[in-house]
């Protein structure tokens, strides 16, 4: 079957030489970056980039718009902060605990929301995450408006001192790379192929015997867990967890980052997160109101380049003549 073999050589998402080279350059740049920029600034980008990648797993590859991802990001930050500060957990274990907590919340919220379509799904996730934000304000362990402050960074696996900015940076980078790889693997897996099929034609997938709600729920939980990984890491990096991270504005911000970079592209959310964080950082010292600018960017994205920066570039690169055979 010559045709099939030829297909396999061309189409399988094996990393092409170009993307391998570009990836290697990007990783080298990330390794060198803390010598040129503030590590805290970079770590903030990495945490939000991972958060956006996790969010993109859901909107870009399942087609579900969650307006409640802050619950997983901010929830995990609380869990990790509490586990490390109060229970004295080792930091990596604490981060994994936060991610597990986010996954459990993903299971509950996803279970309730997954049968809804489109805007109803977005509204239910928003409502449930706001409910969670309210709980966070009320329960004692989150310390209300103050949040959990002074979380010790501690020693990774009892060995590496994370109070050293560079050590903290490289650990964050490793977690980020792991998370991005996880998204890539999930999307390009047998499971990912079914997700793609469901997004393309849900009725057909059902008629082939797929219990599509379970696949969607599975993806939702994975997305929540990875968002939690980002949130837990952020709590260790910044040594606190507050209400800001569980509120709806945070859900909106991650939507913006993903939209700006390019929904459904592997590196779009990373680019989007980098730009938004850099802008916020830059404008923090000026008088210009950040929210206004974010709003303007949002409108421009929706009106002019819906595919996002990376999406538009990819589209320009692959444009080819169309025709049916």
């Amino acid at each position, binding site marked *: *079957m010559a045709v099939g073999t030829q297909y396999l050589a061309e189409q399988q998402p*094996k990393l092409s030489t170009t993307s391998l080279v570009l990836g290697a350059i990007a990783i080298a740049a990330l390794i060198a970056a803390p010598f040129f920029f503030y590590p805290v600034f970079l770590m903030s980008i990495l945490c939000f980039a991972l958060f956006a990648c996790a969010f993109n797993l859901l909107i870009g590859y399942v087609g579900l718009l969650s307006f409640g991802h802050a619950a997983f990001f901010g929830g995990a930050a609380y869990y990790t902060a509490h586990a490390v500060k109060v229970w004295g957990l080792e930091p990596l274990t604490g981060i994994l605990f936060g991610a597990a907590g986010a996954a459990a919340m993903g299971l509950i919220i996803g279970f309730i929301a997954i049968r809804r379509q489109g805007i109803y799904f977005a509204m239910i996730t928003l409502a449930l995450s706001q409910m969670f934000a309210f709980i966070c304000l009320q329960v004692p362990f989150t310390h209300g408006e103050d949040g959990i402050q002074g979380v010790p960074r501690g020693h990774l696996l009892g060995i590496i001192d994370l109070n050293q900015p560079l050590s903290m940076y490289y650990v964050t980078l490793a977690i980020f790379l792991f998370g991005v790889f996880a998204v890539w693997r999930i999307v390009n897996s047998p499971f990912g192929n079914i997700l793609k099929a469901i997004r393309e034609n849900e009725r*057909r997938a059902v008629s082939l015997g797929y219990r599509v709600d379970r696949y969607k729920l599975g993806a939702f939980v994975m997305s929540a867990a990875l968002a939690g990984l980002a949130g837990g890491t952020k709590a260790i990096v910044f040594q606190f967890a507050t209400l800001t991270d569980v509120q709806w504005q945070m859900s909106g911000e991650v939507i913006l980052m993903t939209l700006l970079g390019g929904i459904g592209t592997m590196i779009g959310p990373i680019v989007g997160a980098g730009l938004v964080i850099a802008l916020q950082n830059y404008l923090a010292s000026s008088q210009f109101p950040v929210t206004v600018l974010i709003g303007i960017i949002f409108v421009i994205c929706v009106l002019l380049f819906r595919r996002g920066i990376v999406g538009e570039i990819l589209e320009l690169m692959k444009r080819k003549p169309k025709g049916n055979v």
Partner: protein
Amino acid sequence: MVSTQPILSATGLTMEFRGFVAVKDVTLSVNEGTIHALIGPNGAGKTTVFNLLTKFLTPTRGQISFRGNDITGLKPAEVARLGLVRSFQISAVFPHLTVLDNVRVALQRPKNLATQFWLPFSSLSVLDDRALELIDAVNLSAYAHLTASELSYGRKRALEIATTLALDPAMLLLDEPMAGMGHEDIGRIADLIRRVAKNRTVLMVEHNLNVVADLCDRVTVLARGEILSDGSYATVSADPRVREAYMGTEHE
């Protein structure tokens, strides 16, 4: 292979859409191993009957049983898992997947290779031989590497049949499988249906009466949601009520 044992039977199926009765008291039984045609003028309710039988719609009244199990309360995915698999009147492919991937998606579930999110995409290559076999059976080998959206309408239908056959179902429901196909392709698909029906049951909606006459063991005629006639092609085509129902839609 033709038996008199019903594999699928429906009793008193009724479907109302906000007061409009699209399907009215339909009682139908399909014998195991037969090719059974469901025909009728446009808007007769054929597709709606398919939707009811495969549980894409829940009947207002009535009961459906498949291989002796009551499936009236099941979800559509469960019906498919029992071996009652349908195709759609409006061609249902996964447009941005390649032809090969379309068929592999169908193969993944029966081969238990659908939930592994940790395995590389290349692990799906174990399905390739079977997938290419199925693609070859509908004469699409030359297009295996194209995305489904690049195929002509007739070839999309052929792909849909290959995808449906990938599940190796006990019973196939085909909704106008040959619509939009050229002469040659119709002959090929008719042959294919005859071949695959050797060890399974087929219920098909078809407007081309030559094909029905040639292929089907039994014909049920539906008009305005009700069963008008049921029997061999000769019996049914001699029925004056059937002729009457087809008047005015003769341009078909």
